[in-house]
């Protein structure tokens, strides 16, 4: 006779057969296999079973569950037995997850980020700070919950075992990835941050300050990066407003000085407004001769000035207003860059992950913006440090800025000079056929823009009349471990494609499951993104509407990593080694793209293929694959899988060949792509050579590219910038020591100087 049982925590409690019957009934109901009477009969036999198996001692929980499984099967309730076993396995997994979660939190709490790889998974979060740790703890808890309760078992298994990687998994149930913020639409009529209403800005300084606020606000509604697709076009409006104000005031002042008059601003403003109405033009950086003449004539009439004197006043005013506007714009751009490198988001754990796109506005105001943002980037931060944010993206377009004689060609040249020093801007190429197909001159929203590390949104199967970059973004993305599929196929191409097809289907289903969660949210979950109409069509929603339809403007992206290792596993070499393998590489990626297009058409949703920006992922898959397969030469013998479709970083190849071989993959990866070229410092600082590489990317059909070169930092004094032989801040040479007193002196001048902790 069983009297008592032993619980998991070791406590001994009274045996209660009803509880066993209830558990059995739950399994029967879940499987529609048996009723309460059946459950009671099985429970009776469980007791007899236990008496036989645990003679003289109290059974523990595991023994009871074993007996339940045996007796369910003995009675022929096979479906119920299966449900019970599944339930039991899930509970076991949940208990293990709890233990793992506590261990993770323990590591976040107690281990220095410099020795904890886990805490450096995302380099933008400082895992050593209070808020950074809180974010990581929240993230760990959310991941454990999401895996246990939100994923289908097959998706959880694929994720856990490294067949796939679900990006931003901690935000699985919460929000979407990123958005291109149409800053002009947001500014017109003013907006609200959720902590107060802001009027429409009236000067370039306010335009720039509010642009940073907009990025910050939206960052708190999404887990990915924030981008402004029309930075030049938008800021140009602020420049025009600043110029107009300066024009009125400086013209009044010039007259006051010349004619020894008191306050003339109101009179002048009325006079110029009158001219504006007649000529149909406002004061701007480049006015028509008709406008200038009309102002001159009006001044002469109003103040009884000789025409020649009026002309001089106007000409001087124009020069001064231009100069003041240019200075204000420069300060505004500097302030913007400083803001984005110092302002906090997510409770101070991060600076907003921001991008700005520019280069194609050919108005004088737009050109002033582009020149000054480039100069601000060139100058760097307070002590000349290289700015980490925003990511600058220069949009290259023939007829606009690509060739000598194009209106913005000089700005393109300037961008090359700046990028050669500061690593930004990156370049997006509007002439690549897959970008050009959307381009409509005079409609900047049709110019491809990039956000975060590479995300691109253009095509729109859901609403083909809205194939634009503005107000859209990625909803979520999941990446496939391609090399593992190849390794599991043992060099058999046919098997590989079958596995790839199955994996694509699994990922698409998982993305759709995640979409279901996202689709059921409401405006009030995203007070800025949706509440302020930042996302396309969100301004048409009511509080009751869910987000399903408007979210369909976004993309569901399937990513991949390690094409090079995949090809090596299948064909013995990667795509940098032979044209034959390059062809095979394009077939694989083309196959994935076809799948995305097919699902897009079938569901009228935007599935797209992503060349995954593997930061945390670069090591995750390969660590698991090394355990499974060992270190296989050219495949699993390094600490990372090669980024997306890149030629391996360690492979010697010319810049030209690398670009030529990677370019066709840009056309296939419509969710985003990037190619890099590594130049040594001297070549990079040779602007001609730098520009030649950018031109090569353009001509080969690359969509998005950048050039890597060394930008140095002295860890002793914290100086960041270009360092020749001698550090410009502390004056030491590489490897030299300097007195502690000197460090202390420098720290007084540079309070942000890091305390040097030693070499890792």
């Amino acid at each position, binding site marked *: 006779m069983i009297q008592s049982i032993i619980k998991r925590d070791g406590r001994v409690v009274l045996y209660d057969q009803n509880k066993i019957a209830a558990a059995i009934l739950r399994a029967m109901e879940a499987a529609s296999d048996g009723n309460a009477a059946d459950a009671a009969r099985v429970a009776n036999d469980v007791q007899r079973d236990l008496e036989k198996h645990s003679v003289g001692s109290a059974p523990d929980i595991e023994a009871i569950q074993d007996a339940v499984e045996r007796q369910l099967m003995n009675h022929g309730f096979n479906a119920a037995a299966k449900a019970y076993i599944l339930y039991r396995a899930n509970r076991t997994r949940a208990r293990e997850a709890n233990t793992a979660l506590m261990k993770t939190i323990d590591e976040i709490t107690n281990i220095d980020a410099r020795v904890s790889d886990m805490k450096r998974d995302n*380099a933008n979060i400082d895992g050593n700070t209070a808020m950074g740790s809180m974010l990581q703890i929240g993230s760990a808890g959310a991941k454990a919950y999401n895996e246990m309760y939100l994923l289908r078992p097959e998706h959880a298994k694929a994720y856990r075992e490294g067949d796939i990687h679900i990006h931003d998994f901690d935000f699985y149930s919460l929000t979407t990835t990123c958005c291109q913020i149409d800053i002009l639409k947001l500014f017109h009529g003013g907006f609200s941050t959720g902590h107060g209403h802001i009027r429409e800005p009236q000067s370039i300084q306010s335009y720039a300050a509010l642009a940073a606020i907009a990025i910050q606000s939206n960052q708190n509604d999404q887990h990915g990066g924030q981008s402004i697709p029309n930075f030049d076009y938008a800021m140009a409006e602020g420049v025009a407003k600043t110029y107009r104000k300066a024009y009125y005031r400086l013209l009044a002042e010039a007259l006051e000085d010349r004619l020894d008059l008191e306050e003339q601003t109101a009179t002048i403003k009325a006079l110029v407004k009158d001219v504006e109405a007649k000529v149909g033009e406002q004061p701007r950086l480049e006015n028509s001769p008709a406008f200038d003449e009309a102002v001159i004539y009006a001044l002469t009439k109003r103040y009884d000035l000789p025409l020649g004197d009026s002309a001089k006043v106007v000409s001087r005013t124009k020069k001064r207003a231009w100069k003041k506007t240019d200075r204000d714009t420069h300060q505004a751009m500097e302030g913007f860059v400083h803001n984005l490198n110092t302002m906090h988001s997510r409770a101070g754990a991060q600076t907003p992950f921001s991008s700005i796109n520019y280069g194609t506005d050919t108005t004088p105001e737009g050109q002033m913006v582009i020149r000054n943002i480039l100069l601000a980037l060139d100058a760097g931060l307070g002590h000349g440090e290289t700015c980490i944010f925003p990511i600058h993206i220069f949009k290259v377009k023939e007829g606009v800025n690509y060739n000598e004689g194009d209106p913005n060609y000089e700005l393109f040249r300037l961008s090359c000079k700046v990028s050669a020093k500061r690593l930004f801007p990156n370049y997006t190429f509007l002439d690549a056929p897959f970008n050009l197909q959307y381009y409509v001159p005079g409609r900047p929203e049709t110019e491809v823009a990039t956000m975060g590390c590479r995300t691109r949104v253009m095509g729109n199967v859901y609403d083909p009349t809205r194939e634009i970059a503005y107000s859209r973004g990625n909803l979520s993305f999941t990446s496939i471990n391609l090399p593992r599929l190849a390794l599991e196929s043992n060099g058999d191409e046919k098997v590989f494609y079958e596995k790839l097809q199955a994996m694509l289907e699994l990922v698409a289903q998982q993305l759709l499951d995640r979409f279901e969660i996202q689709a059921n949210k409401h405006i009030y979950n995203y007070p800025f993104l949706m509440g302020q109409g930042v996302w396309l069509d969100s301004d048409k929603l009511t509080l009751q509407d869910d987000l399903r339809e408007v979210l369909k403007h976004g993309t569901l992206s399937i990513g991949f990593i390690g094409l090079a290792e995949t090809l090596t596993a299948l064909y013995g070499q990667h795509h940098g080694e032979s044209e034959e393998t390059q062809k095979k590489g394009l077939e694989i990626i083309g196959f994935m793209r076809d799948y995305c297009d097919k699902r897009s058409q079938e569901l009228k949703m935007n599935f797209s293929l992503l060349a995954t920006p593997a930061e945390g992922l670069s090591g995750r898959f390969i660590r698991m694959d090394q355990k499974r397969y060992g270190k296989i030469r050219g495949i699993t013998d390094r600490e990372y899988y090669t980024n997306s479709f890149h030629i391996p970083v360690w492979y010697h190849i*010319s810049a030209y060949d690398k670009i030529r071989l990677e370019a066709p993959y840009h056309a296939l990866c419509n969710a985003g792509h990037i190619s890099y070229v590594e130049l040594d410092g001297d070549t990079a600082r040779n602007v001609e050579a730098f520009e030649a590489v950018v031109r090569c990317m353009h001509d080969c059909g690359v969509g998005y590219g950048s050039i890597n070169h*060394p930008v140095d*930092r002295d860890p002793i004094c914290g100086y960041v910038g270009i360092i020749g032989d001698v550090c410009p801040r502390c004056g030491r040479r590489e490897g030299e020591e300097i007195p502690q007193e000197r460090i202390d002196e420098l720290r007084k001048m540079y309070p942000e100087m890091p305390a040097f902790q030693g070499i890792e």
Partner: protein
Amino acid sequence: MTAKSNNEKMGQGVGFERIRRITGYLVGTMDKWNDAKRAEERDRVKHGLTKNA
């Protein structure tokens, strides 16, 4: 390599670091990079500008 040779001086044997693009974006100094990305960065080779470099 020693960071501090004694209490009065710092920096002996310490080289200059480089800011590198981690993957499309920058994150500042490489002390925040995860181990795999550090290894990848170490392995990167320069690309020459001639066609058969």
